[in-house]
């Protein structure tokens, strides 16, 4: 008899676990902190319960991982930090052996969802901190009540059980009152799944302010469960759980230069979320999706419910390949993602864009954009991204319907000796830098050469292959009536281009103005002695300042550099339009503060406030 009672009790407890708890208790606590790029996400639970157990029989109440079975009334608290976002209560009494029993629990729990911005260490002054995290908050739960008739005996019995919970999104309740008349020759169960008020699921969009570096959202649960019975068993339970869906990357085995993981709180100013068009295919792939963050493994039912409700887009948008063949979203594990067919019919997880045969036509088509995640068509979160062109590729479009003319920016010249031999396509950096800084100036041409140069009397200046790479230019000042090499300015990207162009244009101006070549020229630097004396240079030394390693035309270079520096200062802010994957906006800032660095001070302001910007 005793063994049978024990067996029944064991079965009942198992059923209670099945109906009311329904979760795995052995989650790794670390699962409840997520690192998604710069977003650190913590779940923390805090709860308390009032319980009452009248233990004539076997009576228990349970609250999440904890159970209480002593007779009497009590209160207890959940240890802080359990962090699963799961609210589970139950009340059980076995009234078979002790004739009568009573158990109840009245519980309250909060789940704190804390979002922390993992701030970059060397945030540039120009950087913009993300101010909020948007996500989809979802909840699901159910309430159950169950009664079990007495053992075969002559005694009649009854059982009453109830369970309920309430949250901001969903609530449910279930109750049952069962009479087991005398004599029931066979035991029987009465369940209440409460199909009308049982399983519940809903979701809403929330945003947490993180302007202070972190913020939190609190999900509240409350509920109760109780049972009273005589010569019978009863179980009342309620279960609810919550989780969030955040914009996240979809891991793929792709070249991280072109397809880096997306970060919901990425700061493109320090190199996050930077995407480069493919140098040949003209495709741009952003492996974006969403991650379900919850203290439990999302089941198929939840995945199937969430997946079609999510969508992603790039704003402002770019053309997509195969718009006539949209694919439904996919899901795997805790990930949900868009699926896109590229021009070759290959299916990608993420967003794929394709600009046709060439990259976009203007520099303004690259740069800052947002990847937006939506839920049921409503805005959830936007991640800042930056779009770049591959600098050394040649997949920019032709321009001006003058193919073969050698005109900038889409074409340049291959030189053999001093002769422009044939027309070649210019690299992307020349095309887009020209568009950004010198649009309409057709005297500036690309040359497939190590250096930039100007031939005396030529109507063009020729910009060579190094004019997008790091460069250190000389800066000068007047000291005691003479020009002196005073500083070095470290440049990169579009500033190197501007420097090279302005240096060569200065030579062109100087030649056309008759500044050189002139005689008498004692030191052979092509500047006349009188001109040098009048402009604080030494007519007897070809590299007065020694800034050019005793170059035979050091002084000629010096005056071109002085003017180039003045012009460069006027175009200083064009670094904001540098969208080359080798340029100033790509990766961690090459200089902080931007956009360049002086050798004299180590900052973007020279230690000298009198650097020459024009020939003195």
């Amino acid at each position: 008899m005793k063994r049978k009672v024990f067996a029944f009790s064991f079965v009942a407890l198992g059923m209670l676990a099945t109906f009311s708890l329904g979760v795995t208790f052995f989650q790794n606590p670390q699962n409840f902190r997520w690192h998604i790029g710069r977003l650190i996400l913590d779940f923390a639970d805090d709860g308390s319960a009032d319980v009452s157990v009248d233990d004539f029989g076997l009576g228990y109440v349970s609250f999440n991982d904890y159970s209480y079975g002593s007779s009497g009334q009590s209160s207890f608290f959940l240890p802080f930090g359990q962090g699963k976002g799961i609210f589970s209560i139950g009340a059980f009494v076995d009234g078979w052996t002790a004739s009568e029993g009573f158990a109840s629990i009245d519980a309250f729990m909060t789940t704190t969802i804390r979002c922390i911005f993992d701030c970059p260490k060397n945030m540039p002054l120009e950087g913009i901190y993300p101010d909020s995290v948007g996500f989809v908050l979802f909840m699901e739960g159910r309430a159950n009540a169950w009664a079990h008739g007495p053992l075969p005996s002559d005694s009649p019995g009854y059982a009453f059980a109830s369970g309920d919970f309430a949250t901001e999104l969903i609530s449910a309740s279930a109750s049952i009152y069962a009479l087991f008349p005398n004599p029931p020759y066979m035991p029987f169960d009465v369940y209440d799944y409460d199909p009308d008020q049982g399983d519940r699921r809903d979701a809403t969009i929330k945003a947490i302010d993180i302007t202070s570096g972190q913020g939190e959202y609190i999900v509240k649960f409350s509920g109760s469960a109780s049972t009273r019975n005589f010569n019978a068993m009863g179980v009342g339970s309620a279960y609810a759980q919550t989780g969030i869906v955040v914009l996240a990357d979809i891991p793929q085995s792709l070249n991280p230069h072109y397809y880096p993981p997306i970060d919901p709180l990425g700061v493109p100013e320090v190199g996050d979320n930077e995407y480069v068009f493919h140098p040949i295919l003209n495709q741009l792939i952003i492996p974006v999706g969403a991650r379900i963050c919850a203290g439990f493994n999302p089941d198929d039912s939840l995945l199937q419910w969430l997946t079609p409700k999510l969508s992603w887009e790039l704003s402002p948008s770019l053309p997509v390949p195969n718009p006539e063949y949209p694919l439904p979203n996919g899901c795997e594990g805790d990930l949900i993602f868009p699926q896109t067919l590229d021009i070759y019919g290959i299916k990608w997880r993420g967003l794929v864009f394709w600009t046709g045969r060439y990259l976009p036509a203007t520099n303004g088509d690259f740069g800052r954009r947002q990847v937006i995640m939506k839920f049921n068509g409503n805005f959830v979160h936007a991640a800042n991204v930056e779009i770049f062109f591959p600098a050394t590729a040649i997949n920019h479009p032709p321009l001006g319907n003058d193919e073969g003319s050698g005109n900038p920016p889409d074409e340049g010249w291959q030189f053999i000796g001093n002769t422009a031999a044939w027309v070649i396509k210019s690299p992307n950096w020349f095309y887009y830098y020209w568009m950004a800084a010198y649009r309409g100036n057709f005297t500036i041409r690309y040359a497939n050469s190590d250096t930039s140069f100007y031939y005396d009397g030529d109507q063009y200046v020729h910009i060579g292959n190094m004019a997008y790479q790091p460069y250190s230019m000389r800066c000068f000042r007047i000291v005691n009536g003479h020009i002196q090499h005073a500083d070095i300015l470290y440049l990169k990207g579009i500033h190197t281009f501007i420097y090279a162009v302005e240096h060569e244009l200065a030579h062109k101006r100087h030649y056309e103005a008759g500044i050189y070549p002139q005689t008498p020229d004692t030191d052979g630097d092509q500047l006349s002695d009188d001109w040098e004396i009048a402009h604080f240079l030494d007519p007897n030394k070809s590299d007065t300042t020694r800034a050019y390693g005793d170059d035979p035309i050091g002084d000629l270079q010096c005056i071109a550099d002085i003017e180039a520096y003045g012009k460069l200062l006027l175009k200083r802010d064009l670094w904001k339009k540098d969208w080359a994957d080798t340029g100033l906006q790509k990766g961690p800032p090459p200089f902080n503060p931007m956009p360049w660095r002086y050798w004299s001070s180590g900052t973007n302001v020279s230690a000298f406030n009198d650097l020459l910007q024009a020939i003195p």
Partner: protein
Amino acid sequence: MMKMKKILWMTLLGLGAVTIIAYHLGLGPYRPRFPVTSGESGEPYPALNPEQGNLMAEVRAIGLLRDRSRLMKVLSALKEEHPLIVINALLALGRLEVPETTQELVALQAKLPENSELQPFIALALARIEAGKAVPLVRDREQLKAKVEHFLKAAKVSLRQVYKGALWYGERLRLRQYPRWAPFEVQVLRQAAEIVGEAYKNGVDDAFEVVAINFSLEHAAQLKAKLSKMNKGERIKWLVDSLSKKRVLKGEDRYEIQALVDEGTTALEAIADKLREMRMHRDRYHYIGFAALFDTLASINAPEAIPIVKSFLNDNDKWVRYYADQALWFLERDWPIVGGIDY
């Protein structure tokens, strides 16, 4: 009609054959083996900072001293981004003549575009290594002849081409149209002068007569030949005197400054003595003589030179003050300048 056609074809073929033979004999106008840098006023190389200046000075010294124990330093300089440092390292590798570095150089040669400015210097280094492999040490006339022949063969230039290049370059300098670098053939001439000079030092007394190369066609090669016939003391004295008497410093004068800088700190005393003498006899010297010696002291970059340079900061001549101040600027920043890289 048929006969006419035949004659026409024969003439064309004959002309073609003559052209090909002439090309291979090096006849006709000068055709540089490597393209000479375009533009008379191209953008200058990026400015060097003190660390880069020191690296260049160190690498050059390794090459000049034939210090193979510090080969790794030179090889690491070869990986630097600044082209001047790489060129400096290539010349040092050529002087070290270590056959094991060939592979490294060939890899660099393959990596760079054909029209890269570095290509002639890689070819130059490879040619010197090849010559060094064939004749590691020159002790007699035959070995010298063999080494020079190997060098020219490995450089893939004939002596006729070298002369044409030197004459072409001389004409360019006369017209004040400076290519960024002297053409490859001129670099070959300078390196040949160095090889012959080494043989002379090793006891081949008639080294210059044996090879019968006309080094006087180019300023730097002539200077190398001239200096290699002197001992260290004579060289320093001659260079100090020559520089002190300068009235103009043109581009080619950097080679004399570099030659004196290459003598190292042993030249400091002679320069300081000369500067003191010049101060005593101001009327005999132009301020440019002071400038040349100040430039040399700044390039040697020894702190011992600071007091003598400082003593000219209050000179009556504004240019002497200027160049003393300029030299101090480099000296106080420990910032050497290797001006004559391709010397």
